[in-house]
């Protein structure tokens, strides 16, 4: 009988130990914890190779209710700057949770605070710390460019199908978002043993199955952080944008969206609170104006209109038109100042004569050389505009870029909303000739347009990313970008550039003059429901341009009065590395306030 019982037992043991694999699996799931180890994010450098954004260790203080022993909360409160009520409230909540599970007591503890805590807490029990990284900004500029990082949400996890998991930090906007996959690195895995109280007791099999983390790649941006900072200061309290591009390369030197905010506002403990504050701000600082704000371009649009007409032979530099204080062929619309009449191309640009460009536009669309009439003419005109990036997504390496608007003929053919087929002519859409019609451009497109002019017809799409590198010791790998041709002859650009030089030296943008530097530009004064927007595009020097820039200050007034000098300040800073000649303008603009 004894033998029988023992045989039954051995059989039972055979079935659970040898035949069944389920128990071994269950045991592993209880004993082994697989912990993701976050990879440090890559650093971000400015165009000079100086560190711009780096990581800083931050600590999360965890408590385990079962082991918690705090003899006196005073040192804790002093170091963490908390009140007794706050401590009680958090502890109360934690103590209601699972007994053996670590719960967060305080997040975003700085290294120096962590050090102070370590010194004080030797007689506390049940307290542990988790190290993680937080972005640290060596230069507090470019919040809109950089964007911010934060914990991945449920929707993002689902959409990325397996790429992210709970607790991952991902870029939510700006460069952090568009270059997230470069910056984020590869998450590692660590297998540790835990005991029945869920405490970690050591590595599993000496760390044999661990996967190391891979630090994210460093990236270098084309941003000139000093120029960026100057622009942000200049635009304080105003709404608008400044975009500066190095014309030769398409590298973005400055990308100012006003009002700006300090990038560190969107890190750490106050991230959400600050984000909400920014969100509630009526000046809408979270709106990335250079990419997302779409304005009628105003008079700066006369430049592409002129270029297309010159290239098609519709006008020549010696074509004269009448002014007379308005476009005489269309009952004086659009209106104009009473210019010396008739006037040639150069003079028309210099004084921004509306009549001249209305005439040019009309002669383009109703030109006998196009057999297909206005439809063929408009299509050719549309093509010129599109090739200069107007109304097009330029595919900058930033999220949320808007296209602006370049109306196609089909839009005007829409009978319900617009005019209908064959029911519109140049005069119907004459406002487009001076940039006040249905054309909408983003500040980035304006800057790109002036970069095209500076380059006399070619451009590299504007971009922020210059180079990447795997590690600090490795060389930077340059990112290559293809150049784009606009299909307009170089001599026509020279004609326009000459005229734009006149604009600054003797025309509407004389406040943009710089001693010894040939600045070329064009002002715009954009009519809208409120006070006019002040717009200026320009580049300098005239030969071998170093900087092309677009400035728009909302509801400020004339383009020559505000945007032009602002652009000159940026140019002086970039070319001479100081603001001296334009200091007066700098102070004047800083002190100016506009109604919003």
């Amino acid at each position, binding site marked *: 009988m*004894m033998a029988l019982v023992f045989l039954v037992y051995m059989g039972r*043991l055979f079935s659970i130990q040898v035949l069944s694999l*389920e128990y071994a699996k269950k*045991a592993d799931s209880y004993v082994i914890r697989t912990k993701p180890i976050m990879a440090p994010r890559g650093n971000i450098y400015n165009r000079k190779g100086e560190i711009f954004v780096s990581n800083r260790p931050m600590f999360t203080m965890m408590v385990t209710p079962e082991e918690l022993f705090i003899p006196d909360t005073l040192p804790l409160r002093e170091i963490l700057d908390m009140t007794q009520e706050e401590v009680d409230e958090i502890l109360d909540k934690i103590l209601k949770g699972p007994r053996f599970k670590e719960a967060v007591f305080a997040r975003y503890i700085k290294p120096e605070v962590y050090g102070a805590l370590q010194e004080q807490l030797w007689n506390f029990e049940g307290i542990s710390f988790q190290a993680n990284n937080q972005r640290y900004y060596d230069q507090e500029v470019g919040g809109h460019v950089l964007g911010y990082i934060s914990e991945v949400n449920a929707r993002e996890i689902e959409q990325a199908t397996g790429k992210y998991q709970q607790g991952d930090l991902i870029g939510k906007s700006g460069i952090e978002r568009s270059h997230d996959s470069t910056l984020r690195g590869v998450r590692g895995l660590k297998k540790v043993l*835990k*005991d*029945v109280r869920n405490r970690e007791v050591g590595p599993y099999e000496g760390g044999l199955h661990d996967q190391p983390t891979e630090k994210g790649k460093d990236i270098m941006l084309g941003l000139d952080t000093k120029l960026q900072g100057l622009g942000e200061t200049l635009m304080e309290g105003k709404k608008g944008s400044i975009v500066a591009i190095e014309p030769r390369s398409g590298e973005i030197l400055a990308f100012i969206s006003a009002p700006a905010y300090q990038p560190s506002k969107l890190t750490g403990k106050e991230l959400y609170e600050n984000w909400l504050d920014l969100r509630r701000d009526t000046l809408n600082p979270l709106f990335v104006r250079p990419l997302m704000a779409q304005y009628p371009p105003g008079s700066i649009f006369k430049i592409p209109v002129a270029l297309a007409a010159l290239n098609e032979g519709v006008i020549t530099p010696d074509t004269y038109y009448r002014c007379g204080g308005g476009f005489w062929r269309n009952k004086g619309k659009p209106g104009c100042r009473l210019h010396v009449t008739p006037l040639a191309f150069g003079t028309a640009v210099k004084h921004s004569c509306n009549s001249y460009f209305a005439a040019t536009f009309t002669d383009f669309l109703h030109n006998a050389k196009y057999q297909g009439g206005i439809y063929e003419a408009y299509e050719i005109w549309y093509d010129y505009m599109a090739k200069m990036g107007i109304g097009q997504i330029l595919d900058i390496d930033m999220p949320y870029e808007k296209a602006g608007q370049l109306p196609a003929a089909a839009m005007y053919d829409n009978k319900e909303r617009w005019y209908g087929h064959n029911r519109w002519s140049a005069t119907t859409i004459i406002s487009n000739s001076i940039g006040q019609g249905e054309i909408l451009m983003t500040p980035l497109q304006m800057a790109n347009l002036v970069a095209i002019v500076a380059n006399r017809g070619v451009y590299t799409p504007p971009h922020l990313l210059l180079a990447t590198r795997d590690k600090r010791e490795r060389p930077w790998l340059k990112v290559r970008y293809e150049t784009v041709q606009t299909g307009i002859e170089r001599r026509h650009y020279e004609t326009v550039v000459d005229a734009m030089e006149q604009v600054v030296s003797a025309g509407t943008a004389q406040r943009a003059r710089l001693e010894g530097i040939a600045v070329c530009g064009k002002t715009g004064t954009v009519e809208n429901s409120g006070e006019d927007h002040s717009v200026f595009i320009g580049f300098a020097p005239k030969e071998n341009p170093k900087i092309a820039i677009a400035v728009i200050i909302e509801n400020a007034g004339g383009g020559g009065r505000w945007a032009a000098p602002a652009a000159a300040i940026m140019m002086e800073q970039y070319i001479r590395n100081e603001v001296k000649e334009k200091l007066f303008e700098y102070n004047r603009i800083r002190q100016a306030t506009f109604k919003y």
Partner: protein
Amino acid sequence: MNRKSFDFDLVSVTLYLVLVGLGWLTIYAVSSTGTGTGIFAPGTFHTKQLIWIGISLVAAWLVLLLDSRFIEAVSVLAYIVSIGLLILVLIVGKEVNGAKSWILIAGQQFQPSEFAKLATAMALAKYMSALNFSLKNPRQLAGALGIVLVPAIIVILQNDTGSALVFGSFLLVFYREGLHPLVPLFLFFLALVGILVLWSEAPGMVSLGIGVLAVAAFVFGFSRRFWGKWLSVVTLSAIFFVGFAYSVDYLVNQLAPHQQIRLKVWFNPNLDPQGAGYNVIHSKIAIGSGGVYGKGFLNGNYTKYRFVPKQETDFIFCTIGEELGWIGTTGVMVVFFLLLLRIRFLAENAKTRYARIYGYSIMLILFFHVVVNLGMTIGLIPVIGIPLPFFSYGGSSLLVFTIMLFLLINLFSYRVSVLGSKI
């Protein structure tokens, strides 16, 4: 002390030493977490157990020095002392895990019920080895039953039902000594019906089975031309068992709540995974995760990090299962089996009736402990808190089992010297 030769049974001593050695190593595996804990680390289970092993070996040596006639003579006294201790515990005992079965003697915790098992075996052997003793004599049968029942009932009063059940082993001794085989058969059927009802939760189906068996018995009876008495015995037993089947529920409800739950989770541990089912679920995982060869000595993560409660005492078999695998568990069972066979051999070949009855008693006590303890760790038997002999941590258990075994070895070596060349 008049004996000079020490030619005691080496086989059982060797098996004993193997079990105690394995037991200590297992306790060491449970108690030495990490790398720094040495063999002599004050306060650890394995060091304390090492001291108890030393004490037990000294006790074993002292037992071997005793005169066998002295052992017989002291039986009644030992029994009376142990009953006295059991009653004392009822009054001044210390409660551990709901059972008031511990007493402090000279600063050491001691469980008198362990000692009572030994003393009862001795007293029973003494009573039943009397020349005129016969189990057919109702008065003497009642006397023998009384010797077993008195300590058992006191232990139940201590709320230590597990230990009390051990005394049931003595019934099989009666069977060996001439009790009618129908008595254990009847008890076996009783247990079978109880288990079937608990398992199926359908007394009707079990009753149907009893009815079928009864009809089969009638047919068998008629074919052999049994009449009269056979008819009434079968009918009465069938009625009794059916009645029992329907009263299992009621009887279970008379048990203490924790015992009821233990019975219920026996068949389905997941009814109460955090409570009564917890031990069984986790002990099965620990044993099952060992596989064929185990995770290796000291590598049992599951037991080392305390996923199985009471693993140094009642659930120590889990550590063997996890670290040494099926080879280890089967090996341990084989050693136990060999020891039990050896004890039966010693009992059967003993010269005196006292030694034989005593030998059978301790064999059955050991067997009961091993079967119930291993059975509960692998989920075949409800959780009953009794230790695994020689393995479980605990001084009084090890000491009592050692003395139990070495008393028999002493009695057997006496036989050798009696039959040897000296006489």
